[in-house]
């Protein structure tokens, strides 16, 4: 049953990315291009997506468990860490460079040609490397200040 819901959620996510035009890299780069031909579509996509999710978080706060019996996500960590900001900045650079982020990269894989496949392979490699290469832990170990592992699974 969890797999069926995951399949439906993935399908609906893909349909949403497809419908909103977010698999078109020129729309994403157009949104980021504040000094060129600015395209505000992404703001509409983000607000459309946030509305139902905001309701869902309120419902989740009143429940002990998810419908299928699993625990709901824990209260979020509030720490604005170096990893969070540096990682997001690196991610943003790549996002601007190609106009693709992980969801749309997979959603458009079937109609994005060879380039889409190259991007997804590079992205998966980057994800694999990130599990083992943790810059701030390396720096902390080298300087002897003690590292901290903020990575969570999933």
């Amino acid at each position, binding site marked *: 049953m*969890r*797999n069926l819901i995951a*399949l439906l*959620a*993935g*399908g*609906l*996510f*893909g349909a*949403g990315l*497809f419908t*909103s035009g977010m698999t*078109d890299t020129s*729309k994403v780069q*157009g949104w*980021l*291009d504040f*000094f*060129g031909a600015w*395209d505000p579509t992404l703001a*509409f*996509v*983000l607000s*459309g*997506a*946030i509305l*139902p999710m905001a*309701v869902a978080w309120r419902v989740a706060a009143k*429940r002990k468990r998810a419908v299928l019996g699993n625990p709901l996500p824990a209260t*979020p960590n509030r720490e604005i860490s170096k990893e*969070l*900001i540096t*990682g997001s900045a*690196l*991610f*943003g*650079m790549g*996002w*601007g*460079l*190609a106009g693709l*982020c*992980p*969801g749309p990269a*997979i959603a*458009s894989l*079937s*109609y*994005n*040609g060879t*380039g889409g496949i190259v*991007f997804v392979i590079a992205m*998966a*490699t980057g*994800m*694999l490397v*990130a*599990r083992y290469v943790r810059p701030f832990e390396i720096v902390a170990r080298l300087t002897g200040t003690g590292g901290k592992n*903020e990575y969570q699974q*999933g």
Partner: protein
Amino acid sequence: MVFEFVETDWVFGFAGGLMIGLAGVLFLLWNGRILGASGVIGGLADGSGWDSSWSERASFILGLLVVPFALTFLWVRPDTHLTENWGILIAAGLLVGFGARMANGCTSGHGVCGISRLSLRGIAATVAYLLAGAVGVVLFRHILGVI
């Protein structure tokens, strides 16, 4: 500032956004999971998700692949305007994959799920990647002229 915007774009954008949000609602309220594309994919890419959650991850990715593929036959085949420069594709893919995992989330996890929960981390991450993305586009498009 020049606007490049077709009036129907915001309707499709908002409708598509609602679908993305509803997908997040399903995943959260039924499965108890935060819908984060980099988290779902990353767990399979780096091996950390090869546990009891692997089939849930694989099912999600299957839906994400198949539905847009079907829509290219049923509706339109969109032009994605993706660059054909392998150097850019590889550099961008590495940055996106590495950065999203380092930050523990991307546009869907920090952006959609984090902001809707008023999570401080989600909002900070979103501000950081939007700024970096805008700087990237200015740098690579307007200054270096490579994209």
